[in-house]
């Protein structure tokens, strides 16, 4: 009996052990570096955007444009293609870049893509429904001087429980009139994730 009782208790405990617990939530600063899964995350997006903007603003194209035109260049963001093996929200990354550039005061941004379509739709609607005095004028958009395009790629190598992923972000600024590429930069982020193996 003395032997059986502990065995019974241990086995019963093991059988009934899988109890779920509720989640624990801790608020944290948004600029805290969090690497939970090893995937592309908000920190990667922010750091890459900061590095890209710093590179873009220190590149000679900006000074040359000021010298030639006497005003800030107007930039429109084109497509940032995701050719990686992860679902990366390019919109977040683009917003990070736009914010940094607009706040620098050295570049003017105009809306592009879906945002521009929505604005045009609203402007068209105003022609029928708003007063002449308040309706936004047609054909008065600011034309962009440059378009920014990019691509995010990744390469993953894995062996013996270790996974190395190299994220490469290539951004280019293209003159809309001449097709000249006035600025190109690449930022790379490498992450090494080590997975524990199942114990025997």
């Amino acid at each position, binding site marked *: 009996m003395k032997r059986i009782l502990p065995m019974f208790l241990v086995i019963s405990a093991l059988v009934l052990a*899988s109890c779920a617990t509720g989640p624990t939530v801790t608020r944290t600063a948004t600029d805290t570096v969090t690497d939970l899964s090893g995937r592309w995350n908000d920190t990667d997006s922010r750091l890459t955007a900061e590095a890209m903007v710093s590179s873009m603003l220190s590149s000679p194209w900006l000074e040359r444009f000021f010298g030639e035109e006497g005003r800030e260049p107007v930039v429109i963001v084109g497509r940032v293609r995701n050719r990686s093996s992860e679902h990366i929200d390019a919109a977040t990354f683009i917003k990070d870049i736009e914010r940094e550039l607009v706040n620098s005061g050295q570049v003017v941004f105009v809306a592009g893509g879906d945002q521009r379509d929505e604005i045009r739709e609203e402007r068209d609607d105003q022609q029928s429904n708003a007063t002449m005095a308040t309706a936004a004028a047609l054909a008065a958009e600011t034309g962009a001087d440059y378009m920014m395009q990019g691509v995010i790629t990744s390469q993953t190598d894995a062996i013996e429980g270790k996974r190395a992923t190299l994220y490469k972000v290539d951004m280019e600024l293209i003159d809309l009139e001449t097709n000249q590429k006035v600025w190109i930069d690449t930022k790379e982020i490498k992450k090494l994730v080590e997975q524990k193996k199942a114990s*025997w």
Partner: protein
Amino acid sequence: MSRYRERSGAVVLLILMAGLLASCASTRTAQDQYVETVPLARDGQYLEAAYLIRDAKEQSYKEKDRVLYYLDAGMLLHWAGEYETSNELLSKAEIAIEELFTKDISKAMVSGVLNDNALDYSGEDYEDIYLNVFKALNYIALGDAESAHVEIRRVQIKLDLLEDKYKELIDQYNSSGDAEGELVYRENRFHNDVLARYLSLLLYRAEGSVDDARIDQDFMHEAWETQAHLYDFPKPELPDYDPPDDGLARVNVLSFSGLSPSKLADTFYINTGPGMVFLTMTNQDEDYITQQVGFSFLVVPGIPAGMHFKIQFPRLKSRRTEADRVVVKLDGIEVAELPLLEKMEEIARETFLLKQPLTIGKTIIRATVKNVAKEAGKSAMKEGLSDQGAGGFFLGLVAGVAADVAVDATENADLRISQFFPSHARAAEFTVEPGSYQVTVEYWNGRTLMDSVDHGIRDFVPGELNLVESYMLR
């Protein structure tokens, strides 16, 4: 008398333990939820089957089975055309599979005492690979080619990981102090998935990346040369990676049929009589009904009576498709017969066999340790009760049976496997004048038309991805 009462108490505890273990979901695989849902899926009632799976969530899927639930529900919702929800569930399955690759030590100990059913189900490798293919198809249906391509890229990463996944585990076991004999590593022979490459080619071609599309086509050709054990059927005509600008629309029809293999239990019982050993074998049929398939006995002089051993292994059972011919009709006119592109069930088997040495090795060791300990306990108890006359003999007998039942209840094969992946993929490409067509895909078995699936009116545009996905899970 108090000693007798004490021992009677021990027997009662043993019986209680047997009852507890026998009824515990941690020790066996729930299969009841499939009795109704699999026939529904075969009949094309995917949403109904998905609802039943959802309703069975509390009863048949515990937290440790969450990967299985996500896969079952995710695949049924894919077939039902609920692409966004399907993607949510398949993504949850994928994340959980990745997390569970790191199993925690305490759970591994539970498995050592009970069986693998007590552990979190971390998915079969082919499930992990194909879930990305079906997520890609979901994204294509949702018009998000870029995300579809992300999924396809993940397939190749997983195939690379598979290369040494089990080799390292087996090496780890063989070099550990717990090693009881040496496990043999089965070399991975699946490196390149044609179905994923096919979709990749179509996606690259649609975006104008000719060189990438050509590389995918090269890999597809290579699969028939380097993986002939998986692609042991005539190579179909593969899509052109750089079609001429002839103003025609290229249409690709991808068809799935059958259901992926299920796991059934093969059980071996060894019982002893005076100088005799009795061997009994049972297995489960496709309706999960256990039947005896073999019986034998050996004369072994001197072996004591009353010993009982049970050992159970999972067996992969093919549920191959009944469809042997699949035909595409546009506006009622036959335009193509779909040749076989991939025997998905063969890939399931290949990846299952990679893990098999671990599964069998672990089962044999665990069952041996448990059964030997149990027999030693039974002997000790019989000895302890031998001075209690007829009552003691009876108690000893009951205690022995209770111990057998308790250990048998813990020795169950882990039969968890998703039920709603298909077994075969077929594909063909043909050109049509741009325009709208009524698309029908017919599934034939010999001269019998099994099903005619109406895909409605589809617009086919030159230079775009015109993919029709068709399925019939019989």
